[in-house]
């Protein structure tokens, strides 16, 4: 379904932050803000829900730790026990200090990689995907605020002009 959206451009992150606060105060829903770099505090100003990626990261870390323990137990204790440095591998717990670096590394590995993959899935990103940002200037020196229009084009235009937008466009958008 195609809908009409308004694109307001800004050339300064401080101006953008104030604009976002004003638009939120006027009770309009901001669809998206495109920035050339992360703007600190923008998520809070836009009223986005806090990210849950930290929780997934913790869970992935637990998975990594478990995998490391099971893997080392199978490789070093059950399948092919060896006597390394006078420490025969008969029990996992007694040889545990030797496995700690592996447990640590796999915890970090799983947490980091799966978290990045989750982030990509959640953001609908994959290799060779076409960029979603509506204007190439948002990758250079402009910020863009996108608001959906519900028969209030003029009102929104006036409001955005007041907030210091340097350019305002109206365009059609295919919602996914």
């Amino acid at each position: 379904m195609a809908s009409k959206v308004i694109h307001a451009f800004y050339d300064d992150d401080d101006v953008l932050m104030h604009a976002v606060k004003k638009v939120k105060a006027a009770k309009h829903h901001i669809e998206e803000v495109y920035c050339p770099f992360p703007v600190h505090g923008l998520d809070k100003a836009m009223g986005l829900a806090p990210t849950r990626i930290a929780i997934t990261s913790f869970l992935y870390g637990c998975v990594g730790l478990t995998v490391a323990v099971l893997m080392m137990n199978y490789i070093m204790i059950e399948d092919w026990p060896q006597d390394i440095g006078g420490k025969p591998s008969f029990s996992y717990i007694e040889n545990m200090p030797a496995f700690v670096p592996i447990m640590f590394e796999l915890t970090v590995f799983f947490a980091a990689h799966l978290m990045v993959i989750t982030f990509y899935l959640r953001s609908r990103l994959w290799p060779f995907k076409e960029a979603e940002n509506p204007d190439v200037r948002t990758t250079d020196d402009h910020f863009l605020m996108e608001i959906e229009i519900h028969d209030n084009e003029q009102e929104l235009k006036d409001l955005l002009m007041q907030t210091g937008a340097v350019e305002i466009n109206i365009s059609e958008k295919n919602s996914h």
Partner: protein
Amino acid sequence: MYTFSNRLKIASIILMIVGALGIVGGFVMAPGSIEEAKEMVASHDDGHGASHAVEASHGGTTNEHAVAEGHGEEHDASHDQHLLDQLKNRPWAALYVAAFFFMMISLGVLAFYAIQRAAQAGWSPLLFRVMEGITAYLVPGGIIVFVILLLSVLDMNHLFIWMDADVVAHDALLQGKSGYLNPTFFLIRAAIFLAGWIGYREYSRKLSLAQDESDDNSNFKLNFRISAAFLVFYLISESIMSWDWIMSVEPHWFSTLFGWYIFASMFVSGITVIAMVTIYLKSKGLLPDVNDSHIHDLAKFMFGISVFWTYLWFSQFMLIWYSNIPEEVTYYVTRISDYKLPFFGMIAMNFLFPVLLLMNSDYKRISWFVVLTGIVILGGHYMDIFNAIMPSTVGDQWFIGIPEIGSVLFFAGLFIFWVFRALATAPLQPKRNPFIEESKHFHY
């Protein structure tokens, strides 16, 4: 301006009095002769039968077996003498651990403060007066530790066996180290270190107060320069101090990362105390500009340095455990056979607790949560020093009893008394620090 409340003052004095009674009690209860020592152990052993056999089998693993070997006396007699020495050491070791622990807190804060100064950090100037208050304890705390070391050199106790000329005469390893490890040089080093730390602390504090009244930033700039220079001195002196004051209780054993290990312990304890004092003062409404983000940052440091401590602890442990060389591994053999609970309990307190409790971002902003975790961290790092000193000085005759608790209470009282008295001498918020505005608006 903070005034040292009467309630807190009385509480700290009570702590000191109760603690002093405990310390005196510990010295009175220590045995005077071999017969008394044997009697004490015998009555103690009734409860858990076979422990004496265990004790005899690994009695030789503590480094003091040098005494036994050297004299060539009958084993039983030297074992009894050894037992007496251990029991006599206990009140001294308890006193020393607590004295060192509280001195270490203020030294850790001093390092943190110097880093903030040298980095020209923008978030922390609001906390400078709190840090300066805590480092004030370095003067009495450092002097007390020095006095204990001096008494050791004067042969009042047997904490450091390398100070005993008779032991050295029968020990080739100690003879080889005597160019460095001798009482005179030891005291000279201790005096230089303490003079350097206290000198920097007093001078930096003076400049910090002068900056409030001045009309340019010259004091601030000078403070920046001396702090950077101090950090160089601190890293060297702290490392050598850890070999001298802690590692040398076990003079045959050495670890090359010991200095870092002790540093991590003092750093995390110091940051924890900064957080606790800040939260206390804020709860009295005295630090109105300190916000959640400051507490959050301190809690992040508590979390991060706890992990750093564990990393160093494990790095030291794993290499020694894996290579299993007798002269190295004896350090951990004594600790794991005689100190199982404090040794492994310390890892739970210093690693598992802070990691699990402070992992969540939101919890780092909840004051009571930070204080609770802080108490566990401080307890854990007391145990860390306990585990470093006790096995070499009292062997398996350890217990957390009257001498240990008394010493902790006494120094806790003195620490609170001195720190809050120092906090009351200057306004809690610096006026003219160039970064004070940034610190007020610090937002994570």
